């Protein structure tokens, strides 16, 4: 698929958790063009930001792109205020994608908005008849975008939600890392991970030697492989998260610089 830009109409922009939103964009050019793990570069505002912001695809169906984003700074705050009917410019589809294994037993491990590319992936995995379990962690109940996740429950064999603090039975108190100790990880053929760096770093210890892919976040200049703003160290040298990634083998990432 050729990379292109498009002015997309915002169809809606809905608050889903304390600081999380799902924005839906209408696309003509990118209908059926995203592979799981791809991201796009979105211009949150021409007035208040300089660079674009990278977001993973949560879902694309029928020319409706859904992104799940959290308000963390100027750009995402601006984006959360954008109204349906307005237009945002995107460049897509960007980056490499997850390897979609067929007929395997796999575990998705996600934290915060890291669940976005994983939920997208789960759809592709189920189509290929893999059995998908998911372990997703959030700070607390307000932080958990229940609607988004429950919406995709059909594709998930097991779904475990951890919250740092909770007293409800349907949730598990602690972090994903804590919970992982309770799971027999040897029963999985593969792991797909996305979330905060600290969590990924710990995962890379726990999953050493396993088949595991991670979708990384890095501060980006261009998102299209030209500025080297997003370079990270890997066991195979310096790599650009935007164009060599965002998906890497979990064990090839060198974490000390993050």
């Amino acid at each position, binding site marked *: 698929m050729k990379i292109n830009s498009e002015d997309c109409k915002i169809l809606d922009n809905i608050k889903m958790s304390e600081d999380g939103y799902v924005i839906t964009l209408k696309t003509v050019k990118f209908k059926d063009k995203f592979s799981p793990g791809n991201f796009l570069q979105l211009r949150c505002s021409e007035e208040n930001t*300089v660079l*674009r912001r990278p977001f993973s695809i949560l879902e694309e169906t029928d020319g409706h792109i859904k992104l799940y984003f959290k308000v963390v700074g100027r750009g995402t705050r601006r984006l959360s205020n954008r109204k349906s009917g307005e237009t945002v410019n995107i*460049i897509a589809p960007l980056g490499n994608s997850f390897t979609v294994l067929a007929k395997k037993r796999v575990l998705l491990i996600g934290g915060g908005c890291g669940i976005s590319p994983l939920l997208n992936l789960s759809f592709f995995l189920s189509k290929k008849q893999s059995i998908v379990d998911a372990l997703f962690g959030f700070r607390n109940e307000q932080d958990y975008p229940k609607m988004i996740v429950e919406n995709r429950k059909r594709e998930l064999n097991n779904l475990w939600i951890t919250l740092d603090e909770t007293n409800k039975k349907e949730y598990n108190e602690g972090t994903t890392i804590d919970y992982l100790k309770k799971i027999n990880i040897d029963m999985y053929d593969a792991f797909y991970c996305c979330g905060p760096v600290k969590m990924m770093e710990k995962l890379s210890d726990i999953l050493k030697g396993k088949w595991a892919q991670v979708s990384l976040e890095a501060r980006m*200049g261009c998102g*299209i492989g*030209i*500025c*080297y703003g997003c370079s990270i160290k890997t066991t195979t040298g310096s790599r650009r998260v935007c164009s060599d990634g965002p998906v890497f083998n979990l064990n090839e990432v060198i974490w000390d610089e993050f």
Partner: protein
Amino acid sequence: MNFDYKTELKKIATLNSPIIISSGTFGTSGAYLDLIKNQNIGAVVTKTITLEAKSGNPQPRIFEGKNFIVNSIGLENNGVYDFVINFDKNYKNIPFPIIVSISGNDESEYVKIIKKINELNSPVAVELNLSCPNVDSEGLASAMNLKSFGKTVFNCSQVSKFPIITKLSPFQCINTMYAETAEKNGTTAISLINTVPAMVIDTENMSPFLGNTVGGMSGPAIKPIALKMVHEIYKSVTVPIIGMGGISNYRDALDFLMVGATAVSIGTMNLVDPELPNKILKNIDNFLTKKNIHDFDELKKRFQKNL
């Protein structure tokens, strides 16, 4: 387009448009090439190449302010040998004239790099990024004094089979001496400005924000600084000037062309909107038509009259 945007950069080339893509913001990734294939770009400048490979600076490398960014990429590149070996592979599909940007740690390194570049055929020019990468990354030129600066330009001009463009850091533009020295020593054109040395603090953590502590500022906020420099230097040299610093729309481009630039170059905003060149040209077209101006010389004259 009603206008003929052919831009003569002296003996360098006649460009199809006065819009150049700056060093460090042009790349050969497929994603990017997809986006720019229909743009009327006059020339593109490669990321700066050094003698040896450089792995660049620690993360984070980019800070974003309200209308500027500060970067400390650290000239990450594979070195000139790798560049030359892979040149055809990487650049044969680029539909624009190519300017190779180079940087050395001292006078002799520049010459070594130039000699290696001489093995190539297709670049139209070599741009000297005279910003002492090892003293300070990207664009922090204070360490290079006027004498060694002049000698470097001279040696490169002598050795290079391609015309030389000398790129000035803002601190080499505070008066016209560096520009004049570059001209006297054989440069074919001058480009300015490189990023402005800058520093950002992560106040909460009481530490520098960038992995490299300091970096270079670019983007819309530096335009008034760059514009003044082009304005002053235009008065004192006859070689063509490639003006840059914060260009984000056609008005910015026109401003640089008015005060004296022969061509303009887009850096930061090319990271954001690779399709900017055609948008700019279309709007320049409208502007010139409305004002009944036929070429950029006439534009310059109109501006000079208003000084």
